């Protein structure tokens, strides 16, 4: 690897002038977003500094327990996001149960596969590899699972009359929900397919950009990126299918009925603490 670019505080301070430029534009044009721009920029800096500090400690310690803790925290955050995004919510935290299962299974399986076969760090759970890999895989899993879960739950509500018409004429639940299920999985796979088609031409993927800026040979960076795309595609597929199937199972029962009564539309805004639906 060639010399890495080292950023000094002065470099960051210079770049931060661009944030002030944004705020200035907002102020001059009376867009009213200067406060948001400044707050979100400050938030971003603090968040990243915390992540950097935590990762530095974890990397230095290279302890399995600390690595596991960070990974579990990431999985929890991604699963929570998957559960909250769909327009419909299952009763008794059903969204959370499905997302926890799908996100952890797809994320862990893909990352372990990559660590044990392609990347092979020593030890295999080395946090420097495991944690960033999990982060990027979870990003794709989050998209695929939340879109597929939303597709199946919202699709069942929208297509209720058609699904029940098929059931009423003697179709199995699997046959009746089939079109909704397939559409949900298909939509869940669109982001990764788009990402693969656009890679390198329309966008330089973030990891690759980072490696190039850090001085890595372009062909090495490209190989990493290809491996990563394969991992993301696999994880997206598992996540989309898993979320759609578990979602479909959750809105049926032992007599193969369509149980939309188990769904509630997600509230547009969170209710004040202390109130329950």
């Amino acid at each position, binding site marked *: 690897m060639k010399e890495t670019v080292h950023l000094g505080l002065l470099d960051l301070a210079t770049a931060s002038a661009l944030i002030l430029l944004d705020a200035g534009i907002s102020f001059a044009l009376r867009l009213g977003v200067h406060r948001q721009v400044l707050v979100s920029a400050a938030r971003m800096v603090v968040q990243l500094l915390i992540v950097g500090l935590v990762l530095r400690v974890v990397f230095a310690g290279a302890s399995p327990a600390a690595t596991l803790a960070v990974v579990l925290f990431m999985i929890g955050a991604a699963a929570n996001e998957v559960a909250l995004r769909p327009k419909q919510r299952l009763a008794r935290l059903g969204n959370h149960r499905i997302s926890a299962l799908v996100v952890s299974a797809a994320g862990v399986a893909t990352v372990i596969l990559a660590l044990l076969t392609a990347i092979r760090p020593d030890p295999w759970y080395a946090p420097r590899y495991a944690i960033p890999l999990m982060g990027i895989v979870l990003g794709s899993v989050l998209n695929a699972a939340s879109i597929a879960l939303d597709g199946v739950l919202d699709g069942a509500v929208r*297509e209720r*009359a*058609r699904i*029940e*018409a*098929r*059931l*009423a*004429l*003697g*179709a*199995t*639940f699997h046959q009746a929900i089939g*079109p909704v299920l397939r559409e949900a999985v298909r939509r869940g796979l669109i982001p990764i397919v788009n990402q693969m088609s656009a890679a390198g031409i329309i966008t330089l993927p973030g990891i690759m950009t980072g490696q190039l800026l850090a001085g890595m040979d372009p062909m090495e960076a490209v190989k990493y990126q290809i491996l990563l795309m394969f991992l993301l595609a696999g994880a997206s597929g598992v996540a989309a299918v898993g979320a759609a199937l578990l979602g479909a199972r959750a809105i049926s*029962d032992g*007599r*193969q*009925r*369509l*149980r939309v009564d188990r769904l509630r539309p997600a509230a547009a805004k969170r209710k004040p603490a202390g109130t329950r639906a």
Partner: protein
Amino acid sequence: MFKPAHEAASRPARLSARRFRSSHAGPFDFEVEAGACVVIQGPSGAGKSVLLRMLADLDPHEGEALLDGAPAISMPPAVWRARVVYQPAEPAWWEATPAAHFDDAQLEDARAHLAQLGLRPDILDDDLQHLSTGERQRLALLRSLSRKPQVLLLDEPTAALDPDGVARVETLLRAHLADGLTILMVSHAPEQARRMASQTWRIDAGKLAGRLAP
């Protein structure tokens, strides 16, 4: 496993219900013979559609429904629903044309009855979006009958039809009744009950408020 509630020696009724209830309606206890036509009347929201949906096992319920003495839970739900077919007031279609909702044998069956219901011979291949509500309602009846059910649960099957259409549908239904089909039909038209019913039920506030055999 159990004895029918009525005399053990007699043949079980075609359709029976025992302590049949949900949080919205019931309890219902009744027996309906093969070839009978029950016309169900009552105010909107009284639980008529709820009863039909429960009988088709589309809504959760307590108690049991039996077909020829065999409880619904003794057979796979798809088998029960193919034998006890429910047709809602606004039947839904999931393909582009009527024909796509039938398999080959069912399609022949449906085609044979088009003229009887006053439908064009080429209507099965039309785009469903271009058909009138009345045409779709008659096609839905052909679709329900094509599954060869033993019990047909009809929710206002002639609501969208003119008097000629109503008469044609009733003639077709009478032919199936004569062949042993059992029909439970929600209807708001008293004349229809007089023409079709072997018994009339009145459902009010989720309960079977009255039975009338003409």
